[in-house]
């Protein structure tokens, strides 16, 4: 079942076109990886999915982005609500300079969550595979955690908002191999409950964690399909050249 799709989506920053007539469908409870060389438009597309690009001056959108069939750029849609339902994890872990607990409860509190906060903290941290490591120091500063733990805290913070989709923009690029492996395992566990869209420069990571793949080049979608198919037998020569490291 498709949860998110774009129809003939084009995006400009001023005169520069970042995305050119892209139509994609993202299936529910799958991991979709977006790959492509720097500047190909993959982060632009990711940020468009929860309207993070609204803050970029001169940004212009043409075409549609449908979340559960509804256009997220419609005037009737509240972008804050979109960002609650479509969470985001960034390249560098960016916990609030507060306690571990405060990082989790802040978003739900602001959004009027009335349930049991302790339960929410525990379930979010458990889902992010961080609970066992921090359960005895929930009131310590999040900044005392390791880089990998901070990134999992950011994932837990996104999960606490009970999103349907989690967007990840190179979530492991600042992490060591062990922390990267924890996040990759976590992505595998999370996909039974959430849809994940991940931008990554690490080809092997895209191969390991995703079910589906989008390959972008110069703002255009060159190839999309099953990850295992693209990594063994891509249909387009440009995809093959990129994933085998012959260009880009």
């Amino acid at each position, binding site marked *: 079942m498709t949860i998110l799709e774009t129809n003939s989506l084009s995006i400009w920053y001023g005169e520069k076109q970042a995305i050119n007539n892209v139509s994609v469908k993202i299936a529910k409870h799958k991991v979709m990886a977006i790959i492509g060389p720097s500047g190909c438009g993959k982060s632009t597309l990711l940020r468009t999915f929860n309207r993070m690009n609204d803050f970029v001056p001169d940004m212009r959108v043409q075409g549609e982005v449908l979340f559960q069939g509804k256009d997220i750029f419609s005037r009737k849609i509240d972008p804050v609500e979109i960002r609650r339902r479509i969470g985001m994890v960034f390249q560098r872990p960016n916990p609030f300079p507060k306690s571990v607990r405060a990082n989790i409860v802040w978003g739900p509190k602001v959004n009027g969550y009335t349930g049991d906060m302790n339960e929410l903290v525990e379930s979010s941290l458990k889902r992010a595979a961080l609970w066992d490591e921090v359960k005895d120091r929930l009131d310590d500063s999040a900044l005392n955690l390791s880089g990998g733990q901070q990134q999992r805290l950011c994932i837990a913070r996104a999960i606490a908002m009970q999103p349907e989709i989690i967007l990840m923009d190179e979530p492991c690029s600042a992490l060591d191999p062990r922390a990267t492996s924890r996040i990759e395992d976590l992505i595998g566990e999370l996909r039974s409950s959430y849809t994940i869209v991940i931008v990554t420069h690490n*080809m*092997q990571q895209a*191969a390991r964690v995703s079910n589906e793949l989008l390959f972008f080049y110069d703002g255009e979608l060159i190839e999309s399909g099953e990850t295992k198919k*693209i*990594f*063994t*037998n*891509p249909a387009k020569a440009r*995809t*093959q050249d990129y*994933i*085998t*490291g*012959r260009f880009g």
Partner: protein
Amino acid sequence: MSAHLTLELDLVRKKLLDLWGLSEQSVRKAGISLQNLDEQQAKEVIKLDHQIDLLEVEIEEDCLKILALYQPVAIDLRLVIATLKINNDLERIGDLGVNIAERALYLSQQPPTPVPFDFEHMWQLSLDMVARSLDAFVRLDLNLAKQVCEDDDEVDAINMSMYDKVYEGIRKNPDQMESLIHYLSVSRHLERIADYATNISEDVIYMVEGKIVRHHHEEYLARK
């Protein structure tokens, strides 16, 4: 990284072509040894096998190194996988060359027995299939690979007809039974060589097209 991988792939590819040459040589010399009941040629085939075994292990180690160090994908991955499989099949072809040479050694010690089948034709056909599978690999030639797969039927048919011929030969000349059974084995070895050439051609098809046609290449050939 890509330049290093390209270099490693080129090197292993060259080694595979060397192995191909040795295996082909093994079948050629084995055939000559049987045709002329030439002990010298037969012993050369047995000696050649040691070289083939060493090279096979070296190629496998190279492929494992490439997989571990470079994690190749797409055409590079298919080349490494095809190389691993072809490597194994070429080594087996070398073993079958030895088996034929051993029959030649045995037969050279026996009183002359008329060869119960068109050995020359079957041998040349099998040898040709091995050679053409190599050409298909080098030229990435799908049509040639498909032709090799198709030619396997003819070798199979010759081998099938051997049973009747050997049975008839034993009935007429029971004293030649042992020699005739050795010829039957030779026919089976040649048939196996043709099978390996077919497997290799299927691996070439996989390498070029990314399609696994093993077990149903008849369907694949019919579609094409």
